């Protein structure tokens, strides 16, 4: 990226405000081995539904109609392959056919193209279908030039959680252990759905503030059940929780590993000492106390666990 990407496309994200170091440290400003003039050697395209602070950094801003990402991506794929495009469909996207052709032309001419996509793409109408479309577009562009796509992740060490869940369970999120082994079904086992349906009778919240971001029925349920929050500061969720345990700030007063959005691990070395325990220590002590209780699996009939 730093050394090669001469076409950088941000789609459905606002890095200027949400990932402030992304331009300067990672993708846009740095001078690279094969891009000695840094920013001057790159073209930046921003695709979004509204003008954000990131527009100032863009060479080309493409404003599309809300909820039309999937259509735009599919039309781009058609243009890449030189197929017929229905003008009526183009008109619905809020862009002109010239703008789209120009973008495809730039994509094919790039030596190394990259698309970063944010939650404006992956969490709006179409959801995972949108992510799938942008990844397919990137894959198909490799018939012409080198092209990659990468998600812009949310707050905290979400990539780290994702990575570790994958190696221990095979799945990134939305995992149920209720049969004694990991099962995956987003929409059924993902946190927000469990809470909205009221399926859980306790919650342990670590490194997140669902009280600020989740839909009201989920928040109401968290307030109803015993909720425990581990956080260095008081959050919206701690206010509705039964227990709040103050922990040391990872990276400032607690050591650990952070995973960058591109899954590169970085060691976190604490600069300060904290009077509070680390998240790890709290979870370990809770686990030690839970461990001495009898194993509930032993008392379950084995047959129900061997479905597959």
């Amino acid at each position, binding site marked *: 990226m730093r050394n090669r990407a001469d076409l950088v496309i941000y789609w459905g994200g606002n890095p200027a405000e949400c990932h402030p170091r992304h331009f300067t440290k*990672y993708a846009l400003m740095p001078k690279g081995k094969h891009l000695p003039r840094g920013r001057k050697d790159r073209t930046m395209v921003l695709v979004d539904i509204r003008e954000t602070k990131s527009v100032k950094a863009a060479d080309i801003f493409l404003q599309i109609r809300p909820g039309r990402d999937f259509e735009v991506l599919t039309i781009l794929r058609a243009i890449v392959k030189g197929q017929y495009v229905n003008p009526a469909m183009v008109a619905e996207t809020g862009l002109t056919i010239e703008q789209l052709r120009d973008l495809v032309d730039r994509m094919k001419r790039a030596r190394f193209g990259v698309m970063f996509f944010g939650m404006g793409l992956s969490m709006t109408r179409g959801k995972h279908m949108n992510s799938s479309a942008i990844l397919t577009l990137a894959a198909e562009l*490799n*018939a012409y030039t*080198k092209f990659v796509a990468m998600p812009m992740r949310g707050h905290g060490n979400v990539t780290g959680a994702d990575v570790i869940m994958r190696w221990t*369970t*095979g799945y990134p999120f939305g995992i149920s252990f209720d049969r004694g082994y990991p099962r995956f079904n987003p929409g059924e086992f993902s946190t927000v759905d469990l809470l909205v349906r009221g399926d859980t009778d306790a919650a342990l919240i670590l490194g997140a503030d669902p009280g600020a971001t989740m839909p009201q029925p989920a928040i109401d349920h968290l307030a109803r059940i015993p909720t425990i929050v581990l956080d260095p500061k008081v959050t919206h969720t701690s206010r509705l929780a039964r227990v709040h345990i103050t922990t040391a700030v990872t990276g400032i007063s607690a050591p650990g590993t952070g995973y960058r959005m591109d899954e590169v691990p970085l060691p976190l070395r604490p600069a300060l000492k904290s009077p509070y325990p680390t998240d790890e220590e709290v979870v370990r002590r809770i686990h030690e106390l839970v461990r001495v209780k009898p194993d509930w699996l032993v008392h379950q009939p084995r047959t129900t666990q061997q479905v597959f």
Partner: protein
Amino acid sequence: MLRITGGRVYDPANGVDGQIRDVCIADGRIAAAVGDGARTLDASGMVIFPGGVDVHTHVAGGAINFARAMTPEDHRRTVAFIRTQTQRSGLGGMAPTTFATGYLYAGMGWTTLNEAAVPILSAKHTHEELRDVPIVDKSCCVLMANNEIVLDLLENGELERAKQVVAWQIWASKAYGVKAVNPGGVAAWKWGKDAKQLSETVEGYRKLTPGTIITGLAQIIDELGLPHPLHLHCNNLGAPGNYTTTLESMKSLEGHRAHLAHLQYHAYGGDDWNTMRSETEAIADYFNAHSNLTADAGAVLFGNTVTITADGPWQHLLYKLTGRKWGNLDVENETGCGIVPYTYRPSNIVNAVQWASGLELLLMIKDPWRVSLSTDHPNGACFWRYPEILQLLMSADFRRDCMAKMSEEAKRRIRLPELDREYSLFEIAIITSAGPARALGLSNKGHLGIGADADIAVYNQDQDISRMFSHPRYVIKHGEIVIEEGEIRATPLGRSYVIKPQYESTIEEYLRPLFEDCYTMQFENYPVELERVEHAELRNCIPAE
């Protein structure tokens, strides 16, 4: 303390070929004798092998973890490991989870493995995953042949400085050996190009060729005296007609030690997919005559798997061929990788040639000490299918039965029908344990001599070879019984073997500005701290004079 009595012992490194004798264990090692108070296992009617060693597998790190994310449909239909008081939950299948990986390896009698591809930049991730692979001992190879700092030095002929950098990088990644994948080709892939011929200049360089990278690295590794030689994944993997590239690579290695990874993928003739055929004979002939080389088979079995390799350009080709899912990861300045799920089918002539080629190499290479069993897990097949390959090697009739289902056209392109050799149990013990342990330079593994690590697999003697090797009666790791009649009894943490080659401390001053120029992280954050490697055990290098 433990005594195993009455079993037939196969210990090729010490010349023991199926004699009935006692094996004694004290303090985690093989001992001459133990006292009367020792527990005794009656192994009458059973065979005793040194624990299996896998010289080339992919079980931990960014690439296999990406494959796990890409294949939830496989996780659903696979074996689930249910949590008990001794074992963690997990999933088997094409890309098993870390805990399941340890249980599955130990569950068939394998006790040591070598993770074959680690980029320095994400070595911390690999070591964190390896820590979660229980029971087995581990080592890993760091990827070097597309590292831009090393390539620049080789381009300028600065071999001495390149040696210092390589030594520093091995220690920085806490690796055990050096792996070269498609030398120059992965660097070229960052421009969407490949490097197919050894004498072609690598894209983006003036005169550097894959050939100079290979000889340069092999020489450096010999001079540093690493216990495991250069671990080479040759250029032009998987392509029809690539055997000439492989022969050239082997010739360029004359005078140096080298280990050729998954040789099966590099032994094809023909001009395109329609004319592709096996050229294992040419490869085996050259290999047999040159004792500086070792190899692992990279055998293929029919069925579903997911292919992952640092060979990015090849994976893009495979994606275009199959139209299935494709994941691509580029690791800045060092390497890249691609991931594509794949199904090998006997009705597909190319797949049939691949299946036969792996077996042909194992049968045509005369010295079993120099060829190890591998499937390049998960690329050719999953490691837990090794017993099926052992059955194919031990029974020519079984091979003929399998070939009966193949088309006449496929049979014309392979040599397997002509091969009658059948492996003995003694030879199986060599290719699964003694040989790979020797290739890795692990003197305490792969044999049952006094002082060796007490890693032992005890199998019921059985006509059904596949069943015999799938279900050991006992598996002993470091003197502790970990598997007993299919049940996991204990899940101790294995050790990690790490090498510290000698380098001049001034090399950091040279590296730092280069690093800050082209990487996006701080130099201090780059090396893996030794404390982050669980149960690390340092092994020595013996530098050449």
